[in-house]
């Protein structure tokens, strides 16, 4: 494993990757990251969140107008929650083209400043910016919202949610991790959870992290 900086060569061949750029048939890094030559994997140490369909996100309601909510996702992209399509009655009856059972899908009314979790339904290129159409919004009551570095989120969640489960068990908090870089924590030992998340971010690139977090949580609980 070695540290690679923006502009360093990752590979002599063309690799299509989020944090790389191809020039003259070679791939170069665009962010700081760790390169494993044997596996050929490149893990960014710092990066910007690039939205994908189905990403779970957390944001703050910035504006609500005509049933459309604008969500501040604390990133380069803005989210929109559109009202569910109204079923058409009469004629051919229910509009099945919309798919799913939309009748039951209602959006809980939200105020400006509320915290909402949601999923990215569509990444849309509008005239002057990229906006995210969000679906299945859920209003989050209370709790604490923390900013984390988007590149550290895979570590906060862990392989098959192991780290997140460990955090939840160790602190008795309910934790939601938005891939856009916002984490929502409620109940339990919030301070301990914050401390653990801070530690994960600081030491994400050093192996044996799960054990160290385990020790930290165990020490915190006994207090």
């Amino acid at each position, binding site marked *: 494993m070695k540290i690679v900086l*923006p502009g360093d060569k990752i590979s002599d061949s063309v690799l299509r990757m989020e944090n790389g750029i191809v020039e003259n048939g070679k791939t170069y890094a*665009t962010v700081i990251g760790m390169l494993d030559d044997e596996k050929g994997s490149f893990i960014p140490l710092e990066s910007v969140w*690039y939205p994908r369909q189905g990403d779970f996100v957390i944001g703050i309601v910035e504006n609500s107008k005509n049933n459309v909510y604008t969500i501040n996702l604390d990133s380069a992209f803005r989210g929109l929650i559109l009202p569910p399509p109204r079923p058409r009655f009469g004629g051919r009856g229910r509009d099945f083209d919309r798919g799913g059972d939309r009748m039951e899908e209602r959006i809980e009314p939200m105020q400006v400043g509320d915290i909402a979790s949601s999923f990215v339904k569509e990444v849309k290129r509008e005239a002057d910016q990229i906006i995210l159409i969000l679906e299945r919004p859920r209003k989050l009551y209370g709790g604490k919202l923390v900013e984390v570095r988007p590149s550290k989120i895979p570590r906060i969640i862990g392989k098959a949610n192991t780290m997140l489960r460990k955090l939840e068990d160790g602190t008795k908090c309910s934790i939601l991790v938005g891939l856009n870089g916002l984490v929502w924590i409620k109940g339990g030992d919030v301070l301990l959870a914050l401390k653990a998340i801070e530690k994960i971010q600081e030491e994400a690139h050093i192996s044996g992290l799960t054990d160290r977090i385990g020790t930290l949580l165990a020490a915190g609980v006994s207090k």
Partner: protein
Amino acid sequence: MKEKPELIIKGKRTDGRAFDELRPIKIEVGMLKNAEGSAYVEWGNNKVLAAVYGPKEAQPKHFADPERAIIKCRYQMAPFSSLEEHSRSGPNRRAIEISKVTKEVFENVIMLENFPGDEIDIFVEILQSDGGTRAAGITAAATALASSGIPMRDIPYAVSAGKVGDQIILDLNKIEDNYSDADMPIAISPRLNNVLLLQMDGSMTKEQMERALAMCQKAGESITKLQREALEARYK
């Protein structure tokens, strides 16, 4: 007008450096927690802090470019930074110019096309100045950007060269900057080998210019190495 001081005495410069010698440079990364990326550079007596924020929604809206992100850059000298007069705070003609050229350096290396309608903010604060602050500022901002995770093609560096009599000198300090026959700050993207900034006060012949450029490129290798060490040290 003040009398021109002797800039080269017995083959050495006023501060005892050789002609092609850089001042001692120290780079630190990541001291500002609120910023996406930050760097602090001590370049001789220059002390420079650079911070990077974004990408975020461009404000005001009519500045936004639908094709790419815009860069907002602010170069600012602290009121206490200089040995000489302490002018009013706020941007002056010089600061506006340096902000503009710094912005243009980074427009060529940041992958702005990834973030249409957004802005990236770069702040360069000169805490103490001793000549060559725009070069130090660009080097600091480049390091801050590299530590921020904002995608970029390369990490540029900047350095200045000048002329005293017939002698080409590297990395001019304040007194050399004021009284030399020519002063040429230059910013280079080392991998792409592109010149991103080239300004000059005074005049040089073609041959002198080539010598100055070669000197800057050679110095650039050590600046790039320092940037790399500073960035890597954060993850040790």
